[in-house]
């Protein structure tokens, strides 16, 4: 007996969604121990070395340590030099510089 086209499609899609749901619900649990171990070793290193930033953007120094960037970062070479590093278009200025009008940053903006 051959299945109708509709049944085949419904079966495939249902199976796909079921697999997706299983992957999304089960994989975080299965990988939890490994994740916890990784996070704790990273936290240990961050605490030990007092690291402040992720090593994601390594082309520009204000993107490598974006939370520590100085005031003139995007125009660091001279006032008319536009930001030419690709990561500069992805990384926004740090909270300390944007915080002036930001509700959450109001308190800290008083510091600068």
């Amino acid at each position, binding site marked *: 007996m051959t299945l*109708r*086209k*509709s*049944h085949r*499609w*419904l079966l495939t*899609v249902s199976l*796909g969604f079921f697999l*997706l749901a299983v*992957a999304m619900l089960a*994989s*975080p649990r299965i*990988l939890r121990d490994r994740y916890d*171990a990784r*996070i704790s*070793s*990273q*936290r*240990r*290193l*961050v*605490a*030990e*070395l*007092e*690291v*402040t*930033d*992720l*090593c*994601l*953007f*390594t*082309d*520009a*120094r204000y*993107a*490598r340590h*974006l*939370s*520590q960037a*100085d*005031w*003139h970062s995007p125009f660091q070479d001279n006032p008319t030099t536009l930001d030419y*590093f*690709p*990561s500069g278009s*992805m*990384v*926004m200025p*740090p*909270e*300390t510089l944007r*915080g002036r009008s930001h509700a*959450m*940053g109001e*308190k*800290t903006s008083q*510091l*600068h």
Partner: protein
Amino acid sequence: MQWARKQVNFIDFALSSMLRRTGKNLALLLVYTTIVFMLASVMFFSISIRNEALSILDATPEIVVQRVMAGRHEIIPHGYAEEIRKIRGVGAVRSRLWGYYYHPGAEASYTLMVPGQVSLRDDEVSVGHGVLRTWPTHQGGEILLEKSDGRVVALNVTQLLDAETELVSSDLILMSDRTFRAITGMPEGYATDLSVSVRNPKECTTIAKKIRDALPDSRPIIKGEIRRSYATIFDWRSGYVLVLLSGAVLAFFIFALEKATGLSAEEKREIGILKAVGWTNSDVLILKFWEGAIISLTAFLLGVLAAYVHVYFFSASLFEHALKGWGILYPSFRLHPSVDAYQMGVLFLLAVVPYALVTVIPVWKTSVTDPDLVMRQ
């Protein structure tokens, strides 16, 4: 039950009708799947990296104090630490020594750092995995660095930092205080910045304000600000993620709009024939709704599954070039799946519902027209 049987028949008819136009529908499915894949990949990546960043950076110093001169970050004298220690509520104040080293051969910048709690000999270094991957003159466990006086120093790589920590340590070169000062030229009695621990973390903002009052040329950076910086960058509703997403969303809307603006002559003729053999307007609408739903559900499923594999099994390798920019060094890391039902719901609403609805509009316009007229067009 009868309703369900009727819908199954509609799906059968819709699938047969779509298989008659295999090429067109496959192209449609491919474009749609690619857009969903992009949307889902950006969403999965940003949510996971955000969670990872927030968890890791929770261990960062409570306050980092920089000195600012002429609007630029300047090295800070050790005397500033003494001033900060006098402030009530301040715990330990430590000097942080770190800086950058550009290697012209590798065309990459590395982060030099002096570990506070580990002592290293002057001729040895600990390095991150990214350093060894990219350092061109690494031979026999030695790396050569140029000192500030122009002379070259050979340093033994005695330890590799844990590969699991690459996200924070990939470009790190840890060395002794004396070696760091010899390479960077930083004078004795100065540090890059100061890290301050606070007895009551709730007082961070107050203490930062007191530091600013006591040392007007200083710039205290609070842990909360560091974490918020990363939270904002990788919030999928803002920052660069929104820029990436808006491109994909725009592409999707152009694609859906094209579909909404009209039907092909063949599709119109098909509707005319269906009406002529007795199908009602609602039957035609249901049929076309199922055609849209079949395409969008299949594309959603394929796109999301592909994005899941891309982000969590291949570490979002397609985004590597975007994140890397002109950088040579990029950490190798695995992300932890952390997408919840709300985020999947948003993705579903964004990717499936508009398309399924928008495809019905031109069908409705055609189905209310006289079948004879439609078939003659």
